[in-house]
């Protein structure tokens, strides 16, 4: 397949052929491109998007509505008023007082997610740098192997993994969750893709000529160059680890829970009181929503960036 030929940009045409030609080209293109980037969306497009947005946000709003009501109100109103009842702070206090170790779970979630993210960033960048920029025998085969492992449902090895963790005495310890997630195939692949394009060989050579050892070259040249992709990878790993339930549920249990495990405890113990449960669910979700508001733009561009290359 031939590389796609892109049209000259309008400013380029204007520079080369003058203003009137550029205007004519612009008009012609608007007429031609009825789809894609030039397509002018009508109200229907926005209506569809608004419905999607409402569907995304409504369950969270519903959670807030129930979380700010009390049990009596919920039992009388199957369809809650769309205006919150204003008992959210009270319910928050009850969640904190409940027997689910909320603060410990929050702290555990922060520790586990942050350490996993840092570790994934470091080891993935290291491996990605090696795959992208260093020459060694078997490089391509190893990279293909890494990518192939993404299709293996390793979650099914949970029984022996649990045995290993209990042998090590890590059951109920945070390292039991952190260590298996230390480096991921996705991360290695991601950083390889990025560094291939973003890190010029000249920089590495310059550092080598200046007498840097291999690891110093990595640290002073590859690490800074990989920063944008590393930030996105860290964000994804953070979200993924924070929302992870199956493995922490099995290996940590109720003694040393993360937030999803604490959510399960809350549901199991207070299943009659949905105001309490929903307040707890929202408290467990809110930190990530804040992260999302602050860094959602990066998440979006991260997914799109990775998809084009992957």
């Amino acid at each position, binding site marked *: 397949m031939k590389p796609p030929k892109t049209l000259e940009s309008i400013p380029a045409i204007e520079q080369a052929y003058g203003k009137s030609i550029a205007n004519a080209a612009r008009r012609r293109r608007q007429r031609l491109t009825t789809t894609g980037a030039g397509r002018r969306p009508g109200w229907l497009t926005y209506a569809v998007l608004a419905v*999607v947005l409402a569907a995304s946000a409504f369950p969270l709003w519903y959670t807030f509505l129930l979380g700010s009501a009390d049990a009596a109100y919920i039992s009388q109103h199957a369809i809650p008023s769309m205006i919150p009842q204003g008992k959210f702070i009270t319910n928050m206090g009850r969640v904190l007082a409940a027997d689910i170790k909320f603060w410990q779970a929050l702290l555990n979630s922060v520790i586990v997610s942050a350490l996993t993210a840092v570790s994934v960033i470091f080891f993935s960048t290291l491996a990605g740098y090696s795959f992208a920029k260093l020459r060694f025998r078997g490089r391509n085969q190893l990279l293909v192997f890494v990518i192939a492992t993404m299709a293996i449902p390793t979650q099914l*090895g949970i029984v022996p993994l649990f045995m290993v963790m209990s042998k090590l005495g890590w059951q109920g310890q945070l390292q039991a969750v952190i260590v298996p997630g230390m480096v991921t195939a996705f991360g290695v692949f991601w950083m390889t893709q990025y560094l291939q394009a973003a890190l010029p060989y000249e920089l590495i050579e310059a550092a080598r000529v200046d007498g840097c050892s291999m690891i110093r070259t990595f640290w002073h040249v590859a690490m800074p160059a990989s920063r944008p992709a590393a930030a996105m990878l860290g964000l994804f790993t953070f979200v993924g680890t924070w929302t992870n339930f199956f493995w922490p549920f099995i290996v940590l249990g109720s003694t040393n829970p993360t937030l999803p495990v604490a959510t399960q405890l809350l549901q199991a113990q207070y299943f009659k009181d949905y105001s309490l449960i929903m307040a707890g669910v929202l408290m467990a979700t809110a930190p990530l929503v804040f992260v999302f508001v602050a860094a959602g733009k990066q998440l979006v561009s991260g997914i799109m960036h990775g998809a084009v290359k992957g």
Partner: protein
Amino acid sequence: MAKTKATRPEAGRPVRKIGFRQRLGRWDVKLSPYLYVSPFFIVFAVVGMFPLLYTAYVSMFDWHLLGGKGEFVGLGNYEFILGQHNFWVAMRNTLSIFVISSVPQVTAAIGIAWVLDANIRAKTFWRMGVLLPYVVAPVAVSVIFSRMFADQFGLVNSVLGGIGIDPIRWHADPLASHFVISVMVWYRWTGYNTLICLAAMQAVPRDLYEAAVIDGASKAKQFFSVTIPQIRPTIIFVIITATIGCLQIFDEPRMYDQFGQGGSDHQWMTATLYLYQLGWNQEMNFGRAASVAWLLFMVIGVIAVFNFALTRRIASDSPDHSAKVRKTAKTRGAVKR
């Protein structure tokens, strides 16, 4: 010339003894690449490959959570599991949830991506809105939807009642419960997959659309004859990841009620939930849990192969630039316009 010689002392000169530092430097260059990629392989071997293979070993023994390894029973565990009614219920539920959750999810993702691909205002805002559910943990999603779809006095049933539809037993009825669990999967994953598809669509060269317009293609025709074939690899990627994820689903069914048994009649108990119950909950029988893991692994393998064949078939049905496809089209004598 003199410079080249200075950087390569061994060229044209008697071999000099290499100093320790130099030798160290050479080892550094040779070994470092392997050293850098090794963490992944070590971690994968220890927490990925080894457990998966060892699962097969464990499944051959009478092995308990508390008692440890017992007698060798060969395929006894498999025989036991395959004779269990619950296993077949779990497989039925898993496949049912898989079908209901994956097909509309991928379809909707492609559709929404196509809408987003237009030249809309406030692009980032809409894209972020689509992605919002991604940061809600599956556990939280399940608690929320379990309440919204409560059998009695739930939001959805009340709304349905308002427009004259009889209440649906979202928990008691198997198919209805599979539907709700699938809705949870749609909720969390559609936006994510939408953005992946959108990225692929934006990489489609725009002059292909222009050519289609000139040839008189309608919008629908453009979508099916330009967009879909162009983003095919991405669609395959999305389908494969959705498959692997859906078949191992645990969080949503586990949290769909407070007991976590997959329903009073196991109506929404999935294979992974069954595995968990065998290993940790009721019998604490690791041997049997391991054999369920292997059976599920094989099912995933079969479906993956089937998937692959199917997507290839779809691929060769659509117009493509590859020579192989053109050849097939020729032999069929089919000319596509």
